[in-house]
């Protein structure tokens, strides 16, 4: 009995080992068979969608020891199909390699795509196992996504990487919100919040091109495009939506001087009250800044008075920025891009349930009062005694 058991178990193990070994040949995907996508541009085409991808050029004729030749680091492919998935699948036939989305850095939506329904575009990325929920999304302002992906940058680098870095650092500088797939879906699923996606463009720089940040694109509750927010308006979003990271503030001092501050940290506090049937958001923005530069160069003294002045000027500058953004958002094409509705939902759920259905109007009618408190942490190496 024991012998039979041994024979059987040995046979089972052997066959399993064989199965495993035979799969050695085709298990996994060799690195050379991968189409490592770095950036995806999605445009509208006749058939449906046209996809432009930037992929790593892994078929360089360089030696295996790694000294790559003068060939380009990346290649651009495009394909069209009636859906994003089918267009992406068609890429395989072009390069012969298997598309690999996990390293994708950024998804660029063309102007026309942005004007269509967003959920259609995003569903593939939400469902696909390979694509990470943390990919960044941006909109190509006034142009096709292909133009962005095909931009002729000065150096031979991975363009999508530069774009990704630009978007990341803009977020760190509190210039635009960061929109990953997960953020986009969350906002879309929220009943009241409008989605703000950073907008980018390319700018000619001699014979070459550069990426530029062009504020944000605002999408309404039906995921359709509403309007662009200018660069300044986009900056205000961070202060209104408690997304202050770092960044700078320039302020005009009363004596005509200009001061520039670097934000060290910041936080926005909210209080929501109802006044005369209108919602009143009381915002207090606390900022900790370092003084970077005082321009316009007249001698200034060390007194507290001056410190108060520059603090006040910084506060006023921030308040102005936020106010402008709010005005734009509350204008005709605007909407709640700063999660006021979501905050009400957490703050007073009953009130929210009442107002939810008519939130667009409620948002536009809501009042906001801003109070900015600035703390100066450091003033740099120059003392107040220096004479100029």
């Amino acid at each position, binding site marked *: 009995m024991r012998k039979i058991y041994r024979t059987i178990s040995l046979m089972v193990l052997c066959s399993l080992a064989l199965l*495993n*070994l035979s*799969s*050695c*040949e085709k*298990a*996994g*995907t*060799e*690195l*050379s068979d*991968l189409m*490592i996508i770095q950036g995806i541009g999605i445009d509208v085409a006749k058939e449906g969608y046209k996809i432009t991808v930037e992929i*790593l050029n*892994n*078929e*360089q*004729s*360089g*030696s*295996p*020891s*790694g000294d*790559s030749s003068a060939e380009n*680091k990346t290649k651009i492919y495009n394909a069209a199909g009636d859906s994003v998935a089918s267009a992406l699948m068609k890429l395989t036939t072009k390069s012969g390699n298997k598309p*690999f989305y*996990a*390293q994708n*850095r950024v998804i660029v939506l063309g102007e026309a795509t942005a004007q269509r329904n967003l959920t259609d575009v995003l569903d593939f990325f939400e469902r696909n196992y*390979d694509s*990470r929920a943390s990919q960044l999304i941006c909109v190509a302002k006034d142009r096709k996504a292909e133009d962005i992906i095909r931009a002729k940058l000065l150096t031979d680098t*991975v363009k999508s*990487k530069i774009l990704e870095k630009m978007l990341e650092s803009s977020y760190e500088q509190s210039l635009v919100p960061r929109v990953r797939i997960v953020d986009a879906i969350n906002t879309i699923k929220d009943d009241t919040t409008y989605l703000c996606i950073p907008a980018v463009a390319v700018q000619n720089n001699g014979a070459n091109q550069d990426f530029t940040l062009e504020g944000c694109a605002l999408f309404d509750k039906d995921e359709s495009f509403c309007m662009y927010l200018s660069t300044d308006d986009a900056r205000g979003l961070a202060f209104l939506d408690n997304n202050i990271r770092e960044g700078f503030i320039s302020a005009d001092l009363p004596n005509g001087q200009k001061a520039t501050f670097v934000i060290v940290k910041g936080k926005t506090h909210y209080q929501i009250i109802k006044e005369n049937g209108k919602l009143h958001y009381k915002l207090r923005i606390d900022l900790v800044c370092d003084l970077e530069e005082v321009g316009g160069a007249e001698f200034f003294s060390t007194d507290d008075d001056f410190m108060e002045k520059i603090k006040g000027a910084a506060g006023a500058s921030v308040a102005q920025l936020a106010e402008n953004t709010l005005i734009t958002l509350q204008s005709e094409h605007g909407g709640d891009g700063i999660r006021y509705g979501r905050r009400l939902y957490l703050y007073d759920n009953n009130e929210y349930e009442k107002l939810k259905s008519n939130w667009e109007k409620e948002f536009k009618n809501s009042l906001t009062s801003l109070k900015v408190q600035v703390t100066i942490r450091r003033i740099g190496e120059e003392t107040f005694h220096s004479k100029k």
Partner: protein
Amino acid sequence: MKENKQIFINVDTVSEFEFGDVRENAVENGRLIKEAFKGSFDIVVKKGYCAGKCVVFANCDGLCNSQKIADNAIRPLLSYNGIMPEGNELEFICDNIICGTEQQKQTSLDTAVDMLLRGTLLIFVEGFNQCIIFGVQQIPERSIDEPDTDVQEFGSREGFTENLKTNLTLVRKRLCTPNFTIEMKEAGVQSKTRVLVCYMKGRVNKDVLQKVNERLNNINMDTVLGSGYLQKALDTKRLTLFSMVGQTERPDTFAAKICEGKIGIIIDGTPFALIVPRLFIENFQTLDDYINRPFYATFMRGVRLLSFLISVFLPGVFVSVGLFHQEMLPDDMLYNIVVMESNTLFTLTLEALIIHFVYETVREAGLRMPKSIGHAVSIVGALVIGDAAVTAGLIGAPMLIVVAMTAICSLVSSHLYQPIAVLRIVFILIGGATGLYGIMIGAAVLVISLASMTDYGVPFLAPITPFEKNLMRDSLVRISMEKLGKNIFDINSVRE
């Protein structure tokens, strides 16, 4: 099965030459010995007369000191002209004529012949059915050298030799206590190898000692020519790559382990002594740890453990990441690896296997071939693997780095080299077929099977699991000697 019996000699059936008791006729004893060793010119039998009594000497030339035989035994005996007490001549010869400390009387001729083969002089006196065994051994041996394995930075420079007595002396001089106990045994039907079971009375667990003795007594082998012969018998019966029997070439390590309540086994003819039971973490401990400062010792133990993990898992993980989980590689690294690996001929799995095969071959060649040409092999190996293979596009440079890293790491814990070499090939295959998940399942199997190893009542993975707080002071971490001195590592506290 039947043919097997014909091909192999069954140890049980080997007949032995039986001498029986010592005869009263001294010449007859000499004749028996001569006849038994017919043709062996190194067995010397000599007859002489002492005070009129016939005396026969027998010794094995080469194993004993001829000068000592002549000066201390033969000359005093043959030149003695005095009177010997009637009926008590044997006693008289031992006490008054021959000079030497090591002498005993033996009635069994079989035992006497055994002793003869161990380098003693046999003296048969006419009319006595006893013989005198006179210790004049001078067995050729190597001088005490620094051991080649188990190299220590600050430890003693003495290593065991092939001589049992020397080895015992080396241990004895480190453990000057009556508690240090030695039991002598013999193993091997033909070789009759002497085996010393050493332990510390009061610290050793009786059950463990009994089990070791049982296993040693039940050994049924023809010859025991090295420590490995006994290792198998003393080891756990489970089929496993790891061993619960330790091996050391260093008397200081040996002494230290005995103080921990373990049992040491010194085998004649090999410089490697065995220690049971051995725990898994002992593979990451060295004697230097107790000489170095605690923080450094702890750090180095961590480094050794990490090296072990790297040497087992790194190639497999690299292959699986390259084939299944490319997203895990940081962006820039992926780009570099992709460019380098894209131009190679083989798949990653095959690449890893080939280069490991080459590495193991070079290692084995370096180990077995004459030392004088060792350098040539390392140069060829380095050139072939290092440069040519990469340039020719056979192997990617990243894989080469991985294998080089693995090779270095695997030499850190030299005791574990054998399991490491096998395991990493297994993990390359698993990783290449099923990715990280397969590797994790393999790792789970490895850990569970290590955890299942319990021999002599001691779990192999103790004191990590089952967790023993007190022993953790000197396992992966080592606290200072002052604190350690009071709480010596006691192997029996982890017994289940």
